[in-house]
Structure formats: structure tokens, C-alpha cells
């Protein structure tokens, strides 16, 4: 019997040896687990296809902050997605791109992306991994070609080393580059604001925050659904089309007139640090946004039924709402060194 066992183990060893694999020379990756905040819906990103690793996240972070992803070296992802503005563009309507150009829309904050299956204000991008290709190739953003970016990375020994560490070989292709960027962006989770602490029973709202939360639940929460503070739907909130930008929103993707002027409901998380507001950044502060719902809604064929009769808000209610919005600021996220420029 012992002889049989040893022959069996020899057989197992032989079997293992036919499993040809170059990984003998490559260090194993260090897995990172994705934390699903308690009470949140399940994340929709397919982590099985792109498991988080320390090496992949580090590579994604380097790419995110590297200007070489743009044509002239001046426009890393981080030029429009700034950490202290919840990875939006601080105090800008439209963002600046290559050769003094401006973008079509306001740069959205990047947070909790693992819960999104469509990206851009119009939802035109169907996968987080595909998202970086849009700004990289857009002539008014980074203005580069994918091929040029890949060639710049291939010429850099540090990148070759980091791609090897993250993916097991030196090969640098679009899929690996965008998967690494996704890994880094997936770590941009904002779930530690005062609101979150209150929900977890670790803190309590003060009176204005509490009054604001009640008003929010009554007048805002059906679209800005907790805990993401968006229901991820596309809606026309009665913001008239800018004559120069001519942006028809979701209809640009679906070509369906019923989608004209619809944009995705933005999250309210970190709203107090991510001005300006609206898909084209036309509102300078949150009071202007609130006044839009109170008095500015323009009705058209696709205006959302929930806003077409406007949302009456007194000055008192606006003040309490803003107190509640402040409780959505997640300073741990905004100051997280792991997300900061290396």
C-alpha cells in the first residue's frame, strides 16, 4: 500500500509538471479583498475577471497620475479627477483639455464605481474597463491614440516591471492597462461620511442635519436613492439645452427622442466639495441647484414627472438640506493617502 501511495504521489507530481507555466520566475500577486459596505447593494463590477491585487492597484495608480497617457504629457486622468474634489474637477464647469480646449461636460466625481455598470453622464460606456479609452482618445481631453499610449508604456522599464508584477509577464496591451486603471479606481470607495457613521450607529445627526435628512427623504430620495445617492437612472430635470453645447444627453447614445436631454442622476456623496453642478456645470453652488428645482424647471416633452411641477423648497428647507449634504462629505476618502498622487 505504501508503495502504491508513493507511486500515486509520483504520478501527481508528474501531472503537475505537465502544467507548463512560466510563473516559476514571476512573484505571486498579493490579493486585495474588496470590502462591501454593510447594507449596500452588491457591487456589479466583475471582480472574478479582474481580481484586485496590490500590484494591479499600484500600477493603476501610477497610470492614473501619469501625464504620458495624454498627447502632450499635460493631462493625466488626475488633471480633471482631483482627489480633494472627490475626483471631480474642483470649481469648474467644464474641464480643460489638450490645446486649450474644453470638454463637453462637467467631469463627474469618481467614487463607488464598482456599483455602476454604465459610465458618462449619458451612460454611453458599458464597462468600467472601457471608460479610460474615452478621455484618452477624445481630442478635447487627452487627445492621444491608444497605440501611442501603449508604446510609451512599453518603452518604460518601470512600467514593464510593474505590468510583470501585476499580470505575470511584460506584455502591455489595452486590456491590461485598463484593468489596472479599473483596479485603482475600484478602490475609490466613499462610505465613511458622517451619514454613514450615523447609519452604522456610530454617530448622531445634529438638529439641522436631522431636519435636512427628513426633507431629503421627502423631496429628493426617490432619484438620489440611498446608499449610493443615485438610482442610476437617466432623467431630464428640466435643465434647458445650452445653445452652444447642443448636448442631447442620453439621446446621443440611444438616438431615441424619448431620451432627449436625459442625464444620469448624479450621486450626492461629497457634493459639498465637488462644485460646479449639473451635467455641464452650469450651477455654481448647491443653492442654485435647489433654486432650479424650486423655480427654474423648464418643461419639455421629456421632463421628468417628478420635477415637472417643480419641487417647492423654502429658504429654511434649503438651509437644512445643505446641513445634511455636509454630512455626506467623506474626509477619510478625500484625504486617503492610498488614493493620493504618488
Amino acid at each position, binding site marked *: 500500500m505504501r508503495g*502504491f501511495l508513493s507511486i500515486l504521489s509520483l504520478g501527481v507530481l508528474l*501531472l503537475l509538471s505537465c502544467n507548463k507555466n512560466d510563473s516559476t520566475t514571476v512573484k505571486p500577486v498579493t490579493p486585495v479583498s474588496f470590502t462591501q459596505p454593510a447594507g449596500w447593494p452588491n457591487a456589479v463590477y466583475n471582480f472574478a475577471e479582474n481580481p484586485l491585487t496590490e500590484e494591479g492597484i499600484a500600477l493603476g495608480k501610477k497610470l492614473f497620475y501619469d501625464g504620458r497617457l495624454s498627447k502632450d504629457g499635460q493631462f493625466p486622468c488626475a488633471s480633471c479627477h482631483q482627489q480633494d474634489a472627490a475626483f471631480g474637477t474642483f470649481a469648474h464647469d467644464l474641464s480643460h483639455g489638450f490645446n486649450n480646449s474644453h470638454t463637453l461636460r462637467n467631469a463627474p466625481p469618481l467614487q463607488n464605481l464598482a456599483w455602476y455598470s454604465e459610465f458618462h453622464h449619458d451612460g*454611453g*460606456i458599458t464597462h468600467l474597463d472601457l471608460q479610460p479609452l474615452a478621455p484618452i482618445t*477624445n481630442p478635447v481631453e487627452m487627445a492621444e491614440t491608444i*497605440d501611442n499610449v501603449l508604446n510609451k508604456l512599453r518603452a518604460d522599464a518601470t512600467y514593464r516591471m510593474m505590468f510583470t508584477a501585476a499580470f505575470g509577464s511584460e506584455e502591455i*496591451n489595452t486590456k491590461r492597462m*485598463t484593468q489596472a486603471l479599473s483596479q485603482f479606481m475600484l478602490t475609490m470607495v466613499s462610505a465613511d461620511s458622517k451619514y454613514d457613521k450615523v447609519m452604522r450607529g456610530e454617530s448622531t445627526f445634529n438638529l439641522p442635519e436631522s431636519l435636512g435628512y427628513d426633507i431629503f427623504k421627502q423631496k429628493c430620495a426617490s432619484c438620489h436613492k440611498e446608499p449610493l445617492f443615485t438610482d442610476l437612472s437617466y432623467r431630464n430635470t428640466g435643465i434647458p439645452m445650452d445653445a452652444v453645447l447642443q448636448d442631447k444627453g442620453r439621446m446621443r447614445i440611444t438616438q431615441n427622442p424619448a431620451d432627449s436631454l436625459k442625464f444620469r442622476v448624479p450621486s450626492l456623496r461629497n457634493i459639498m466639495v465637488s462644485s460646479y453642478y449639473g451635467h455641464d456645470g452650469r450651477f455654481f453652488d448647491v443653492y442654485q441647484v435647489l433654486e432650479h428645482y424650486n423655480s427654474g424647471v423648464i418643461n419639455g416633452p421629456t421632463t421628468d414627472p417628478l420635477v415637472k411641477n417643480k419641487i417647492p423648497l423654502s429658504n429654511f428647507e434649503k438651509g437644512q438640506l445643505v446641513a445634511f449634504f455636509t454630512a455626506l462629505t467623506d474626509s477619510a476618502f478625500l484625504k486617503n493617502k492610498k488614493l493620493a498622487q504618488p
Partner: protein
Amino acid sequence: MKQLASLFLIIIVVALGCRKKSDTAATDVPVTISIQHAAGAAPLQLGTQVTIASGDPVTINVFKYYLSNFSVVYDNNEEQKIPDSYFLVDEANATSKSFSIPLKAGQVKTLRFWIGVDSARNVSGVQTGALDPANGMFWTWNSGYIFAKLEGRSFVSTAPLQAVTYHIGGFRTGQNALRQVSIPFSTSLPITAGSRFNIILQADALKWFTDAANISIATESTTMEPGALALKIANNYANMFSLKEVQY
């Protein structure tokens, strides 16, 4: 003796285990698909002016497209799908116009494939190889493959530089430009272990402008997004392929 027998057994198991993919490859017969591009009766020449069905002149400079999801139908009506069969065919790149697909032995009566890329690959993140977005056949702002590209010039075009630009794609409901091609063989191809078939297909670029509906370059010079003109052209080029010859 019992130990010797089990040793033999293990060696056999190991040997079978090591065969892995090579044993399926042994029964697959590579069949070559070669594509020749035409402009009507003449071979397509990039940069040479031709006349389309409406009478408009056009000079084609870029002509490329994806072929995908190949399958064959055998005489017993069994269909064999070729997994991961995605090819980017480019008139300007000779090696892209010939590729091989692995078939099982049998009597093949029909070859099928799609012009374009199936919706699953349009929504499942970044692909590699022929489908790498770095190949320039991908809309980055409205995720999806450009299934087929024809670019050129025509003096009846009202676009800047008198350009003719057809980037055809779209996988969403109401925008689906994916078109299937079916090539029946008058005599079934006897695929056997040693056979070396070369199926030569012809694709007529002028079909983009006619067949289901005529295209007028003066009013329809440009499409670079999914939609009505893309569908109109896809309905035309769905019939651009014909069987030219089978070599063996």
C-alpha cells in the same frame, strides 16, 4: 505485480493528462479562408476612382471590417461553431485577408459568419487580439465596435475635404448592424484529416452603395455612429460576399 500494474495505469493517466489541447488539434482540420476585394467587375484598387450604382464617383482609400462567429453546417445539418473566431480584414494589409479556421472532418455544405462583432463582446470590457480597441475599430465615447469602415473621397460629397466616411456599427436594440453571411457550396466540401481546402471569397465594395437601397453620396456622405444610415449600409453590405472558388 499489482504495483507494476498500478504504475502502468498511472503512466497512462499522466500521458493522457499531458495531451491536453493537442489531442483536439489532431482531429481539427485547418481550412483556409481567403478574401479578395472587388469594385464591381474589377479588383478593388485603393485610391482609384470607381462609379457606384447611383452614378456618383468615389475613390476608396480605406476598406476594412470585422468577420466573426464563423460556423459551418455539415450534410447532416449539424452546425459546428468556431469559438473565438474574430478577424479584422483590411484591404491595405495582405496578411489580414487570409486566415484559417479549424473544422471537424465531414461533408460541409454551408459556411456562415457575421460581419461585425456580437453584442456580448461589445459589453464585456476590453478585449485582446483582433478585438483590441487599439486597432482603431472602436467607439470610445459610445462603447461598441466599428464593424466596418469605408473611407474615401468623392467630388459630389458636401463634407469637408469632400470626404466619404462610413463607420458602421451598433449593437443596441434598434441600432443592430450585425449581419450574417451564408455561403452555400454547390457540392459539399469533403473535409478529411489530410485535406487542404482554401475557400476563396470575394467581397464587392460597391455593394455598400446599393443592393437593399441606393446610397447618394451628396446627401449621405458621412456616418460615424450607430443609426439609420449605418443600418441602410449594413443592409447593403450584408450581400457583398460571394464564393469565388474552392481550392484543394
